[in-house]
């Protein structure tokens, strides 16, 4: 019986194709018998909840989990200032080329901590599961969470699971909160951009958003683009190790590069000048955006950062970035200026200028 459930779970992963999540780390959820899908009882706090934690989440998390199951994680003291961040993940579809909601949930929060210059240490994971979601899907997501945490070197120290009625939620929602420690002397913040700073980006932009859109219902299109989901604190550590006083770091997720740059321009009361032809927009991203009427600068990234650094340290930081696997495509895209404060302006390929605006809300594909 248990084997059947496990078999169904494995079959689900193989049968759906294209999502090569590693299932080896996830042992068969034997006690989850007779429930190939989530039922309300899994969130009830009783035996079924315990089964889910002990037979699914903990094995799936592998070495990244701290297995004490108290009400609160008790953590050792750390030396330095703490960074603390939380984010919720509701991406649809849950599995997409290059990743899943599971690794996003880890990398997203890890990156939020890294953008403060912090070394991420601990994460909480909380799930809101819709009744009827396949247990095998939860297994795949949890496995991805475990793998990503292991890759990022963070520990999963506490968690929670709730189940909502069919129709109240949608598949799996994940919230993670994370704590990291900031090395002494590191002060990074959106208010520290100064005129003269050089704007760097760690590589090709728009990959995650295009990968997710390519498999969204009703919009399936074939593209070699995969999500760039990755933890960036190692890259940040290498940048800081140059000794250059990095002023601002930001990971351009929702709203893309244009949202991040606008937030920095507003936060620091400066202008940002970009050179459009220097923007690292892969051809596939440009094509997909052209087709859908979207601006690549407004498309989400999940494994890129934008940095503002003093001009005299820019080359050293750029070199350090390019030496790191997640910064191999790093380049200079513009400068911070005194002119047009709180506004981001791009010089177009033809020599004109255009304002790069904060996106309003959801991107709406154009009619024609």
């Amino acid at each position, binding site marked *: 019986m248990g084997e059947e459930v496990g078999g169904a779970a494995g079959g689900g992963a193989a049968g759906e194709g294209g999502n090569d999540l590693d299932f080896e780390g996830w042992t068969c959820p034997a006690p989850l018998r007779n429930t190939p899908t989530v039922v309300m009882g899994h969130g009830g706090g009783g035996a079924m909840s315990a089964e889910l934690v002990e037979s699914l989440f903990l094995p799936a998390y592998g070495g990244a989990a701290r297995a004490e199951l108290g009400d609160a994680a008790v953590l050792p003291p750390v030396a330095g200032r703490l960074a603390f961040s939380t984010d919720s993940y509701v991406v649809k579809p849950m599995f997409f080329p290059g990743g899943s909601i599971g690794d996003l949930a880890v990398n997203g929060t890890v990156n939020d901590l890294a953008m403060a210059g912090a070394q991420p240490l601990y994460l909480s994971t909380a799930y809101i599961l819709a009744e009827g979601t396949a247990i095998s899907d939860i297994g795949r997501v949890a496995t991805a969470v475990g793998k990503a945490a292991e890759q990022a070197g963070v520990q999963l120290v506490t968690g929670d699971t709730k189940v909502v009625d069919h129709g109240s939620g949608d598949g799996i929602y994940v919230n993670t909160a994370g704590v990291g420690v900031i090395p002494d002397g590191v002060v990074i913040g959106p208010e520290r951009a100064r005129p003269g700073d050089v704007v760097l980006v760690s590589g090709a932009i728009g990959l995650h958003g295009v990968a997710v859109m390519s498999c969204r219902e*009703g*919009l399936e299109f074939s593209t070699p683009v995969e999500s760039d989901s990755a933890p960036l604190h190692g890259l940040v550590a290498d940048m800081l190790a140059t000794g250059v006083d990095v002023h601002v770091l930001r990971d351009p997720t929702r709203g893309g590069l244009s949202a991040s740059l606008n937030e920095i321009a507003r936060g620091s009361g400066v202008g940002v000048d970009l050179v459009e*032809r220097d923007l690292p927009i892969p*051809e596939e991203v*440009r*094509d997909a955006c*052209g087709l859908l*009427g979207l601006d690549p600068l407004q498309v989400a990234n999940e494994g890129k950062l934008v940095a503002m650094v003093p001009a005299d340290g820019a080359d050293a930081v750029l070199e350090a970035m390019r030496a790191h696997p997640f910064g191999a495509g790093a380049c200079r895209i513009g400068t911070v200026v005194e002119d*047009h404060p709180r*506004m981001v*302006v791009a010089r*177009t*390929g*033809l*020599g*004109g*200028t*255009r*304002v790069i*605006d904060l996106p*309003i*809300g959801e991107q*709406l*594909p*154009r*009619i*024609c």
Partner: protein
Amino acid sequence: MKYLDEFSNPDLARRLLDQIHAVTTRPWAMMEVCGGQTHSIIRHGIDQLLPEGVEMIHGPGCPVCVTPLETIDRALAIARRPDVIFCSFGDMLRVPGSHDDLFTVKSEGGDVRVVYSPLDALQVARDNPDKQVVFFGIGFETTAPANAMTVHQARQQGIPNFSLLVSHVLVPPAIAAIMESPTCRVQAFLAAGHVCSVMGTSEYPPLAEKYGVPIVVTGFEPLDILEGIRKTVVQLEEGRHELENAYPRAVPAEGNPAAVAMLRDVFEVTDRTWRGIGMIPGSGWRLSSRYADFDAELRFEVTDIQTDESPLCRSGEVLQGLIKPHECSAFGKECTPRNPLGATMVSSEGACAAYYAYRRLDLVSAGGA
């Protein structure tokens, strides 16, 4: 798409700009008809690079912008019905009706879905036989063939729960209406390339002749637009007024005969109100009597529509090229893409939205916004 990059090559653009500067001896005002062209011109800053006095007047060719308020209100009323799945292209969702928009209807529980093709809506109808599925069929001659094909298939395949809310508009009657306007300043037109790729170019020589204006069929990439402008300026300088095709790689003179045949079967010409402009005779398409069963307007009788346009919004004058977007007192103040008073601020092809998105730098430096 290498072939697209080639059409934004900066060196070639510079060469075309030099040629435009060389032939221009005095000010000219020309209108690009299509919102896609407006978007491209503003996005690439093409208008900033033209000779002093060569002015681009932004035309009414944004289908989202000119869809009449009454039709939007009708769409909202239909989308609110519990038995309806309302399908639309994405950028119609934020267009303000008299009181709210499709996003509001969706948030209140209406089943409003963004689709990327009308054929997707037909699939929704197949999948939901107990629901009425309505597709919001708006646009110029470019989007019409796909809508026509969809209705044609719905009839052929016997899908009775599908219908089309039609508000198609046509370019040539709009050009005539603009030229007939007593306040008209337009001396030449860049015609919309993709409209012509469907309909061909035969409708335009009579307009060029009657109104004495050059009409140049123009594409959408920066080099296409510059070549269209160059051909237009050359005609103006030489005192000619002819139809020319600056977009031959997409536009054969006869257009797409199969699409035109389908259009003639499914649609018939009707008078159409353009939002902000008013009624233009013979400027729209509605479903022909053969397809009346699929007309959402007839299927869902929505009678008590009281339209209520914002008194501040001057989008009509913008659409007619009488004022530039920032000359409206509400621009960037009461009216922003986040809180649009008129449709021209909503669609990325709307002139107001294009100015807001790309041009605030100049406007701020000039103290304009």
